[in-house]
């Protein structure tokens, strides 16, 4: 059997730049659409913790007197540290540990997602606007 498949073009062509540009534009559009409306809200941070589709806890971070350690039981067990400045997952028994590596989140619109545990910790309300969401690379 001979296949009709021809070998690919091995050198970058001009149209490749277009593909890269489309991907870039898509990234910007999603970023603006997702993060845009969340800027400029009240500077009152609320941590919304949900497991699956269910919101299990809303914690008002601004009125928090002292740091609060919360144990979230999803598919995995997460230890979440909530403070005035934000939230972070300090311990998790999930295999990927992405939630722990995400580190501390402190700005509205940011979230920590633990996929194996199906846990989402999301910050609502805005504080210092204009700062970068995440610095990549």
């Amino acid at each position, binding site marked *: *059997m*001979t*296949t*009709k*498949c*021809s*070998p*690919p*073009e*091995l*050198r*970058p*062509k*001009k*149209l*490749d730049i*277009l*593909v*890269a540009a*489309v*991907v*870039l534009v*898509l*990234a*910007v559009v*999603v*970023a603006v659409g*997702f*993060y845009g409306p969340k800027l400029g809200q009240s500077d009152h941070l609320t941590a919304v913790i*949900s497991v*699956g*589709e269910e919101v299990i806890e809303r914690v008002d971070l601004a009125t928090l007197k002292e740091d609060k350690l919360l144990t979230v039981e999803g598919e995995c067990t997460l230890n979440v540290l909530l403070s005035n400045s934000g939230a972070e997952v300090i311990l998790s028994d999930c*295999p*990927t540990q*992405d*939630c722990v*590596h*995400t*580190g501390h989140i402190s700005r509205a*619109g*940011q*979230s920590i*997602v633990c*996929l*194996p545990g*199906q846990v*989402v910790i*999301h910050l609502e309300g805005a504080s210092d606007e204009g700062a970068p969401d*995440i610095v*990549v*690379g």
Partner: protein
Amino acid sequence: MTSMQKWTTKHLTLCAVLTALALALSTLENLFPVTLLIPLPGVKLGLANIVTLFALYYLGTGSAFMILIARCLLGALFAGNASALLFSLLGGVLAMAIMALLRRCRKLSVYGVSIAGAAGHNIGQICAAMITLGNTMVLGYLPFLLLVSLFSGALTGFVVALLFRAMEHVKLSRT
């Protein structure tokens, strides 16, 4: 690949070897988690995509698709994680579909096809995440994943280009 292809032993073996290679590359990739550098879930080099891309050009869409499905099923089996299957399947199939379409465009090189495929993979995975989590919060990760896919896609394209250059001198009959 439009007509029914004849599955010779050699063809079947080649597909099996490529499946094994893709699985090995995924495992290798897990040993060097890029997530430590860029703390975003789902950020990967996508080394297994090298195999998909190569198979797409060398064996055609049908065989490449079968290798992809076999890789996803076996990968989920090894990881023992059913939700991982949805992630790799949605991401993989979307990447595959995009690459299979763009491959026909002669004005695109392997780099463009690869970048589009990597982006498609990320979009598919975010879709899977939205399905499993039941909310759209994870959509916030997509812009960063897409930025990373520009680099990982170019890297994959580069490796496949190297591969095809090296294979110009290899008379591996296409049966």
